[in-house]
């Protein structure tokens, strides 16, 4: 619960409030120190670090193969992007070719993870604005997708399925009708989400034309993802710099016009629809063959040739990347993680949260695609 620390400053008007780590409106474990005048925020200071585990140091101490167990835990709602960029970086340095079927299965997993993360964010919007029905619906929908993950990979949350050279094992029997059935159900219920959230006059009053993120703000902060696309610029890494099998996929990039909070929320539903469209294409046209090209030799003794690379993918929140440096030994030399919500979570809060009202602080963080574990690493 936020602690009310009534410190009257010199001009006797400002109140200091800690929108602290233990708060039901906070999306994760993160803290913002606010200074208020009346109901308006005049200064906001982000305080990350509550989830800091020192990942980059831990990754330098483990073998290339052992890191696969550690890295999904960097971004908790969408762990497959971590495995994807790590595998892409090592494959680029060791010049491995992933078989086509492996690439298509990677697209399937990444799009399912994107649907999961968007559903979680839609539920968080409901929780931050007081509409708990939305949170319950979104979490239930997410559970049906977690069942698909459990059938394919064996685990609900941390899969460790995308490995160096492809994917760990082939799809099980009978999975295609199972996925199609779940996707049909999700598509039917998307219309109910739309009616609940985006035709709701209360949410319109709270989100429409408020919390605006316009084009100049995006360029100043180097924001990517839905925040950038809501201002009308269709930049998506899957189109601009394709990876896995995205060149052969047919999908649209939904954009908005004004960049207000309602548009950003609406784009999430549209992106879920596009992800379902991509998954249907994958399941209809997936090629057959091996799913993994194994590097030669004992997996615990791989040596990646010396070099460096920066790999990025389009996660549900924006550009997510790893900078991997190898010096030719059995352990990585340096891995630097670029969290997708680093710009808006730190610089955005400091520069653009002042001016909003106290009741919009939770919504600001909820609609700005924000995930504390990837900031803290």
């Amino acid at each position, binding site marked *: 619960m936020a602690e009310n620390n009534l410190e009257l400053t010199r001009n006797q008007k400002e109140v200091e409030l800690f929108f602290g780590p233990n*708060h039901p409106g906070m999306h994760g474990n993160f803290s913002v120190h606010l200074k208020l005048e009346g109901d308006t925020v005049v200064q906001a200071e982000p305080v990350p670090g509550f989830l800091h585990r020192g990942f980059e*140091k831990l990754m330098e101490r483990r073998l290339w193969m052992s890191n696969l167990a*550690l890295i999904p835990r960097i971004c908790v*709602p969408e762990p497959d992007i971590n495995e994807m960029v790590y595998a892409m970086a090592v494959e680029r340095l060791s010049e491995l070719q992933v078989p086509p079927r492996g690439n298509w299965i990677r697209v399937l997993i990444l799009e399912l993870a994107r649907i999961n993360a968007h559903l979680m964010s839609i539920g968080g919007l409901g929780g931050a604005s007081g509409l708990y029905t939305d949170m319950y619906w979104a*979490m239930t929908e997410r559970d049906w997708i977690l069942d698909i993950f459990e059938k394919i990979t064996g685990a*609900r949350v941390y899969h460790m399925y995308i490995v160096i050279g492809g994917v760990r094992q082939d799809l099980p029997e009978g999975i295609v009708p199972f996925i199609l059935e779940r996707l049909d159900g999700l598509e039917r219920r998307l219309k109910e989400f739309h009616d609940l959230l985006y035709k709701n006059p209360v949410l319109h009053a709270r989100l429409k034309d408020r919390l605006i993120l316009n084009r100049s703000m995006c360029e100043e902060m180097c924001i990517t993802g839905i925040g950038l696309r809501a201002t009308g610029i269709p930049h998506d890494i899957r189109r601009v710099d394709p990876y896995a099998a995205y060149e052969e996929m047919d999908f649209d990039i939904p954009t908005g016009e004004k960049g207000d909070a309602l548009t950003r929320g609406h784009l999430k539903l549209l992106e879920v629809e596009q992800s379902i469209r991509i998954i249907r294409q994958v399941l209809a046209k997936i090629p057959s063959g091996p799913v993994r090209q194994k590097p030669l030799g004992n997996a615990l003794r791989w040596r990646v040739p010396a070099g460096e690379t920066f790999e990025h993918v389009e996660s549900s929140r924006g550009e997510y990347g790893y900078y991997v440096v190898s010096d030719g030994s059995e352990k990585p030399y340096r891995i630097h993680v670029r969290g997708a919500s680093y710009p808006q979570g730190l610089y955005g809060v400091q520069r653009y949260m002042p001016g909003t009202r106290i009741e919009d602080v939770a919504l600001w963080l909820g609609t700005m695609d924000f995930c504390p574990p990837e900031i803290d690493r």
Partner: protein
Amino acid sequence: MPGYSLHRENEDQLLDELMQQVRNKEKIDERSMWQKIADWAQARSIYMLHYCTGCGAIELPPTMTSRFDMERFGIGPMATPRQADVLLITGYLAAKTLRRVILTYEQMQTPKFVMGFGSCTLNGGIYYDSYSTIQRLDLYLPVDLYIAGCMPRPEAIIMGFNRLKQMISSGDIQGWKDYEKRHDWYRKNQDKALKGEVYVTR
């Protein structure tokens, strides 16, 4: 070790060992009638503090919502520590979070319970060599129950809560009493890990 394998020389020895175990478990219930009723009622109405301290918290919303509904057991979320009963430490704890968690725990009213989620509260888990996460939770807070997993499934969480309810209604919970009795020992451990500054309101 007794109880781990039923291979014995003859059946009489097996019977003797089992009877010994039964006698060890018989205890005299010393609670008054009012206390028994209060414990029975407390076990059926538990408020869980909604504080996501680590990555294990991602399996809490599925446990609370419609599929693995937790409210049918009488467990519901609560925003403020002053009115909560259970503090869930979901996963690892960075030292920065531990300061706030200790303040939160001491703000809760007795009787209060602490549950440790996942293997990071037991022995550091996968972050055993990290410079910023703790290795053992029960040096700093009295833990009543651990739930194994990385991370525990909703079914495991519900099983853990059922065990907690059983422990409450039989009067076995001693965690908060232990914290009051041995506060100096806990405080000494907290000072060592948090470098002297334990209570932080920021």
